[in-house]
Every structure is written in structure tokens, then in C-alpha cells.
């Protein structure tokens, strides 16, 4: 029993990250009916930006180099101990790191949409798909050349000193896992509310149902699509930074496998459906954990994809994919 619960916790943490990435796939598909293959690279870029900001705030030697380059940055030297050792400072630093990573990656997503996808919006759908593949390769190789193939993520002292949280029995949850899980839930909930209640969310849903009609009703289609391309990558960036914090390293090709898994999650839940993507993400995470826990880690993809195929045979639209009205 304890074994099962521990696996469940492992799976939910991983699933939370998958869900965050899957949302980016599903949002774009819902509105443009396009699979944004460059989205996995948003996850990767977000991780690298998160790495840069965290390093700048917490790593003494980076701060020293940066202040040689740009003198006012030396103020970071005095804030560094506060950020890395105290609880309040740590939370503040995390907010800054995630905020900057999300906003910059979101802006990058909007830029890509503007230059790589918008000119192709009225071309055959295959063109945009190829453009997305090209973007993906470009970003990977750009990061490889400009930054490096692998960056070791710094672990803030405060986080390193936290002990695992015991739940009951021998079950324990690592602090970073807890942070990931809670943040994912908060973000997913907020996004869900945003799309279903706010005016902009309504505009997004309208655009996904019928772009032309929505345009006639006075919705600025271009800005709604741009917003979509901001939200998706921003969530991806959060997942990418979590990846770095949890696994200790970001690599230029780290988007590949999480990207495939998240895309699978989006399809499993019903692509185009927000709650479907969340459900799919958590489901895949848990399935992977259970498969590798009870069988072998070598079987985990076999089991996961076998279940995906089964579900798609019996429910071709995905788990929650039926109600076309809800798609965003």
C-alpha cells in the first residue's frame, strides 16, 4: 500500500509537468488546429532562461562576472544571501525566476507566432507544421551554439537544506516535488477559471469555435492568437524551470521526450480540450510511475502507449474530447 502511494506521488509530480506542457499543445490546437512542434522547445528555452535568472540571483561567481560587465548589477551581491538562505527570500526568488522565465518565453512564443506561423495562416496546414518543425530545430541549435549543450542548474541553499516531508508510514515527499505539484495545481486551476470566466477567455473560446465569426463580432483574432501563444509557452517555461530544479540540469535537447509525452497527454485527454490535457498529463505521469514501479522502467513507455492506443480505439476523440463546444 505504501509502495503504491509512493508511486502515485512520483507519478503525480511528473504528471503535473506533463500537464503544464500539454496545455500549450492543446491551446494552440484548439484555436489554430495546428500542432505546434516547437512547443517542446519552449519548455527547453524556459528552462535555460530560468537557469540564467536563478544563476544571476544565487550564484556568487555569476554575480561577480555580471557586475564587471554591468556595474549596477553588483547590488545582487548584497541580496544573494537573503535570496538563497531565508524562506521569504527563497519564495521571492522563485517568483522572480519563474516570472521572468514565463514572461520572456511567452514573448518568444508570440514572436515565433508572428514571424513563423502568422504568414502561413491561410496556407495549407502542412506548411505551418513544417514551419513549426523548422522553428524547433532552429531553437535547439541556437541554444546549443549560444549557451551550450548542458547547463548545471544551481540548487539554492535553502532548498538543499529542506528535509523531505513525511506524510504517513514510510511515505515521504521531496520538497521540490511538493512545490511542483502545488504550483501545477494552482496554475491549472487559474487557467481553467481564466478561460471559462474572463472576457479574454471568452474571446479565446469564441475564436476556437469560428475564427471568422468571432472576428465579425469584434474580437481581434490576431491578439487572441498572440495571447494563446503567450500563455502556452509561459506554462511550458514554468515546467522547464521545474525540470531544471528537480533534475539538476538543463540540456538543449531536453524538450524531446517530455514534449512527446505531453503531446500524448494532450491527445489522450482529447486535443483541444483544456481539462483533457490536464487529466491526460496526470494520467500519463501516474501510468508511467505504476508501470515502472510494478514491472520495470523499461516497460513504462510500452504500457503508457498501449493504453493510449486502447483509449483512442474506443474513444477516438480522447477521454474528454467529445464536447466540441468546450474546445479552446
Amino acid at each position: 500500500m505504501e509502495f503504491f502511494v509512493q508511486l502515485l506521488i512520483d507519478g503525480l509530480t511528473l504528471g503535473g509537468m506533463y500537464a503544464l506542457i500539454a496545455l500549450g499543445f492543446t491551446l494552440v490546437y484548439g484555436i489554430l488546429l495546428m500542432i505546434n512542434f516547437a512547443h517542446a522547445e519552449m519548455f527547453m528555452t524556459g528552462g535555460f532562461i530560468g537557469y540564467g535568472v536563478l544563476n544571476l540571483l544565487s550564484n556568487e561567481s555569476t554575480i561577480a562576472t555580471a557586475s564587471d560587465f554591468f556595474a549596477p548589477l553588483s547590488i545582487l551581491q548584497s541580496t544573494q544571501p537573503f535570496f538563497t538562505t531565508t524562506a521569504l527570500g527563497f519564495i521571492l526568488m522563485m517568483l522572480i525566476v519563474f516570472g521572468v522565465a514565463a514572461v520572456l518565453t511567452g514573448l518568444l512564443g508570440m514572436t515565433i507566432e508572428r514571424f513563423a506561423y502568422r504568414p502561413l495562416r491561410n496556407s495549407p496546414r502542412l506548411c505551418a507544421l513544417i514551419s513549426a518543425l523548422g522553428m524547433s530545430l532552429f531553437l535547439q541549435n541556437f541554444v546549443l551554439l549560444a549557451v551550450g549543450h548542458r547547463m548545471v542548474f544551481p540548487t539554492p541553499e535553502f532548498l538543499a537544506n529542506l528535509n523531505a516531508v513525511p506524510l504517513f508510514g514510510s511515505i515521504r515527499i521531496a520538497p521540490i516535488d511538493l512545490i511542483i505539484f502545488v504550483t501545477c495545481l494552482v496554475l491549472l486551476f487559474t487557467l481553467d477559471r481564466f478561460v471559462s470566466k474572463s472576457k479574454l477567455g471568452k474571446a479565446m473560446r469564441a475564436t476556437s469555435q469560428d475564427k471568422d465569426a468571432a472576428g465579425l463580432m469584434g474580437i481581434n483574432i490576431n491578439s487572441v492568437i498572440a495571447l494563446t501563444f503567450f500563455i502556452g509557452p509561459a506554462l511550458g517555461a514554468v515546467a522547464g524551470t521545474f525540470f531544471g530544479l528537480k533534475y539538476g540540469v538543463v540540456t538543449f535537447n531536453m524538450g524531446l521526450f517530455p514534449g512527446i509525452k505531453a503531446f500524448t497527454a494532450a491527445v489522450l485527454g482529447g486535443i483541444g480540450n483544456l481539462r483533457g490535457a490536464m487529466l491526460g498529463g496526470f494520467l500519463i505521469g501516474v501510468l508511467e510511475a505504476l508501470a515502472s514501479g510494478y514491472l520495470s522502467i523499461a516497460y513504462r513507455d510500452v504500457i503508457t502507449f498501449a493504453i493510449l492506443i486502447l483509449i483512442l480505439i474506443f474513444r477516438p476523440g480522447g477521454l474528454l474530447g467529445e464536447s466540441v463546444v468546450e474546445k479552446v
Partner: protein
Amino acid sequence: MKRKLRFILAAMVALALAFALVACNGDDNGYENGDDARNGDTTTFVIGFGGPISQGAVSFGVGARDATLLAVEQANASDEARDLGIQFRVVEGDDQSDPSMAPQVAGALISERDLVGVVGHFNSGVTDPAGLVYNEHGVVQISYGSTRPDLTHMGRDNFFRTCATDALQGPTAADSAWELGFRTAVLIDDSSPYGEGLAAAFKEQWENIGGEILLEERTAQQESDFAPVVTRINAADPDFVFFAGTYDSSSGAGAMFARQLKDGGFEGPTMGGDGIQVDGFITEAGQQSEGTIATKPGMPIEDMPEGAAFIEDFVALTGNTPGGFDAFAFDAANAIINAVYEVARADGVDNVATPAGRRAIIDAVAGINFPGVTGPVSFDANGDSANPIVSTFLVDGGEWIIHPDVSTP
């Protein structure tokens, strides 16, 4: 008009990018090989280097490349080379630790007209397919770090290696673990040719001496999440975990694994082979790497017979301290260089870079015997190092030290 402007702008941006890329590349390859010292009477031979330079297990590739350059630079300055009228230069092949790159990297090296031998490759899974190409063309290949045992048992008489193999490393790891008082193990390999070979060699000896294996797992090289495996390990509760694989996130997952194992609350140590015995492992696994044990062919470079001089020269050339298998690459390059001298003396310089000359080089390497950095360099009938040594290391205070509680064999 507007469209035309746009096109010109795009073309300019593309050009600027292209130049930037070329400039980046130029920086990477940074060393000159002293070609300018040539006059009409000298012949320049090519020594190929194959290993991961830009991606993959780069910390085992870049230093080894530099060690090869160092060997060549010293040879070019030597009296022997001057008397014979020989110079060498290094052509590097970047295999990125990727087996599917191997044939094309090897093919590029083979196409060098004056190629006399190849130092490389590092990953066992790359050394094998690349070796096929060298074998076909009858060029001597000396690997500096591929430890999979059966590489020297494939009927390729042009293949040699300067490092010890997992046939020795696996049993040494098992013996060390036993000596440290461990009795139960979980065995994990990363599905790479190297990992499988090491795991099998470890398992055989471990069970022979009475050790117990509670769980065997096989992961993929690109795996990043090990939480469920850690949960299984915690449930099995072994004395230690043996991880047969490499450390870095693009060609193996040792550091991520060790990190998550500690984060998951496992108290015992992780143990591994030479694939994780590298500074990059400590950097990536952070403080969770403390207490990790690893075996590695050879000994610390400073304890090697000619280690001090090697370190000094290496630092002078590159500005970095040598690590990994760099000393083995240095010895491999020197084996080729010495064989070339031998053949040049016997058959004349003009006959070295011919099919017959390359054949003669292979025979010369087979019979070579000289004092190298790592000890006497000579090969047995299979092409394995005749003087293999394996040491056991421990991460203590953020660096690899010789394990104080393990007696050296």
C-alpha cells in the same frame, strides 16, 4: 519595392548568422599543429582522433583530443621526427557519443590521404561501428576509453586499446564492494553497450563471491525521471546500488540517478564504473554525489609513472588540468607515433601512408613496448592493454579521491 527590401534584409541577417556560426566554430578548434615549420623534405602524416567533442560524453572527449594534440606537438618537436623528416597533424572527428554518427565520422577520417592511425573512440557503442570502417581500410585504431570487453574479440586485428576493460573493472568493483562490507545490491544498467557489459561483468563476480542481487533494472540512456525506480530500490532496501552507465544527461543518466536516489531518501551509496568517475558527475549531482564510489581503469594521473610531467605539459598547452581518460589517449597517440617511426625507418617515409605501410603499422603497434604516462604500453594477443590497472575512487568533499578503505589489488 517593400518586398525587395525585405528580401535584402533577410539575406543580410542570414549572412550575419552564417558568419557568426563560422566564427564560433573557429574558436572551438583552437589549436595550431605547427604546420608552418614544414620544409620541402618533411612529410606530414595525419593521426585521426574520434570522440565526443560537441555533444555526448564531452568531458571524456575534449581532454582526450587535447592529449592527442599534445602527443603530436611533442613528437613534432622531437629529434626523431626531424631526423626522419616526419611531422604529424591531428584531424578530429566529432562522434557526439552517437553510434549512428560513427560510420560517417570514421569515413571522414579514412578519406584523409596521409592517415596513419586513429585514436578513439570513447563510447563502446561508437567504437564498434567506427571500428568496422577502420578495419575495412586496414587502419590501426587504438581506443583510449572503450571498456566493453568483447570489443577486442571481434576478429579485428587492427584494434587495440590502452585502458583496462570491464572484464577487469566489473570484478574489481564487486571485490571492492565486498571489502567495504556490502552484501546486497541493486543492479541498474543504462542499456548502452558499455553499461550492459559492465553490469554483466560485475554480476558474475558479485554472485561468485556470495553477494546477493535484490533487483535488476534497465533504464534508457535518455531517461531523466527515476522516481519510481528509487521507490522500488527503497522497498528492496539493498546495501548499495550499482549503476552501470555513464554520468551525463545527454549520453547517460548517472548523475540524475544518483541525485534522485539521495533525494528519495536512500541512505546507501551509489557505485559505478569509469562512466561516472569524472568531475562532471560531481558538478551535476551536486552535494548528493557525496559518498559515491566508482572504479576506473588506471590510477589518478598524478600517481602515474610519468603523471607529473604529463599534467605540466597538458596545462601548458590547454590551460586545463587533464582528467578522464586523457592520459590513455596520450599513450594511444604515442603508440601510433612510435609505430610510424618504426615503419618509416624500416621501409622508408614514402611507404608509410600506403596500404602495405598501414599494415606494417598495425604489426608494429602489436609489438610495441615503451614507457607511457600510464605505465608500460604494450598489448596482448587480443589487442588489450598488457598492463591493466583498475582503482576504486570515492567522492569526498566534492572531489574524487582514492577510496581509503579499499586495498589496491
